[in-house]
């Protein structure tokens, strides 16, 4: 199994990584070897195995709908690279939100 430079460049864009052509080539080699290793699993017959949704057997973990104490705004903002005391500041975001 090998990943092309195009595959790697696309994954790079989705991960917001600026990769130089040399890095793309190195990543393609390394990722191909990882994917190749994992693809050994394909040799197993899994036709009668249920897909694993979660490695733990635990189910139905809930909490009650009871408000807890929040952080203060200062605490929330303190690790942000930039803020104005009320909000996090980021480079301009224009147009619609990415939420879907």
């Amino acid at each position: 199994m090998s990943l092309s430079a195009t595959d790697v460049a696309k994954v790079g864009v989705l991960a917001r990584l600026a990769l130089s052509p040399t890095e793309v080539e190195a990543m393609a080699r390394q990722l191909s070897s990882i994917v190749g290793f994992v693809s050994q699993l394909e040799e197993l017959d899994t036709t009668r195995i249920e897909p694993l949704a979660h490695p733990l057997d635990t189910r139905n973990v809930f909490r009650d709908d009871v408000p807890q104490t929040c952080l203060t705004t200062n605490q929330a903002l303190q690790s942000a690279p930039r803020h104005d005391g009320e909000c996090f500041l980021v480079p301009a975001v224009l147009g619609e939100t990415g939420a879907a």
Partner: protein
Amino acid sequence: MPADASPFTTVIGLEVHVQLLTRTKLFCGCPTTFGAPANTQVCPVCLGLPGSLPVMNRRAFDLALRAALALDCTIAPFTKWDRKNYFYPDLPKGYQISQYDLPFSSDGSLEVVDPKGAFPPRRVGIIRVHLEEDAGKSMHDEAAGTADSRIDLNRAGTPLVEIVSQPDLRSPQEARAWLNELKLLLVYLGVSDCNMQEGSLRVDANVNLHVPRGDGSTAKTPIVEIKNMNSFRSVERALAYEAARQWEEWQRTGIEMGKAPKQTRGWDDAAGITRGQRHKEESSDYRYFPDPDLVPVTVAAEELAAIRAAMGEPPTRLRAALAEKWGIPAADAAVIVNQGRDVVAYYETVAGLVGEGKPAANWLQQDVLRTLNETGGTITDFPVGPAALADLIGRVGRGEFDTARGREIFAGLLTLGRAALPADVAAAVAALGITAVSDDELTDLVRGLLTANPKIVADVKGGKEQAAAGLIGQARKQNPNVNPGKVREVALTLIRAM
């Protein structure tokens, strides 16, 4: 334009996000109170800080189940949550916790019936209902010309159900009516307040056109997803605009679905147009995978039964029950139920006091609801209480006042109520200077009129009962408080006795 006259069929599917009525967020105990100062309802979980872990809100899951059951969905016995990965400043974790291949419910439907029959009853399929978290809010003040956007994460992690319909709607008008029905259902069942101004309900619409070709086959235009509609009226307008735009484009280019990528367009309410936006990332680009921080949920049959039992009555059943109980037409019951629980309660109080459903339904629709439409406000602070209205309806029914007089008294009640004065019928009657006319007074008055109008008497005796109508104007001139119906009745009785 009637559907059969249109050269195309508009095909619409809706995607609705509804905020659940919980006190706290989906995966942490931060409150979901609307309008709190920025970044005061946040914690390590909803900020996506390293090492924090989400725990699912039981109430949110139950309300989501309630919504799915109300929409006749099949509930999956096993469900899990997945990470939908994308980068955006309002999404602190870098992924949204949502549901991908195993949503907790699917395959439902919701029917919408227009009380006036503006379109045929339409049953709209529901593809799926799933439970996910909301993102935060990013604000950019273009006028200020700053280079920064400000991020408020109070909303991040708020529980939402996403409801995806089949493309079963066939006109912008139907889409709006269906949304009203959906909102009514969710509000009646206490799932959400569906307040669009506060972002508790958001709608995206998918629309394209099916154009019949001469050979019996159908051409389909590329699907467009419309976003940024902030009211149901906007949804209707945006869809109408988009259908017209696609028809124009189709005639010009002839480009069919599949020949162009799916497009996202934003609705500009002020300009009344849709505008093209960036291309949507392909579903695979979100690199969904099961969230290892959340264990799956299984739903037992007993749990479902309990939720069903606690669900309350949906509007469809309430309409039928109201029509049956008070003997009113289905259309009347629909109008009343569509106004919400408080109007139903008001109506039932009035109808109960009057002891009859139909007059109460008429006054409610023609006078109370019309006034509310004109002046705004809600039934709970309506200046005329149910007792005063019932008293008025009773008196009109007994012939103490005719309907026109009744309307004047109703207006009088409104004036008193608005001035925060006691708004009862006696007070309104006194304020208007109306005095009830006793039977003796009325008989004397009519007797005088009969003496003065021998021709009318002769006509009535000759079989032309309608001639008695000529007395009414004269009677009102002498005493504006007389009831026209009674004048006629007394006149006929007296003439017959002559």
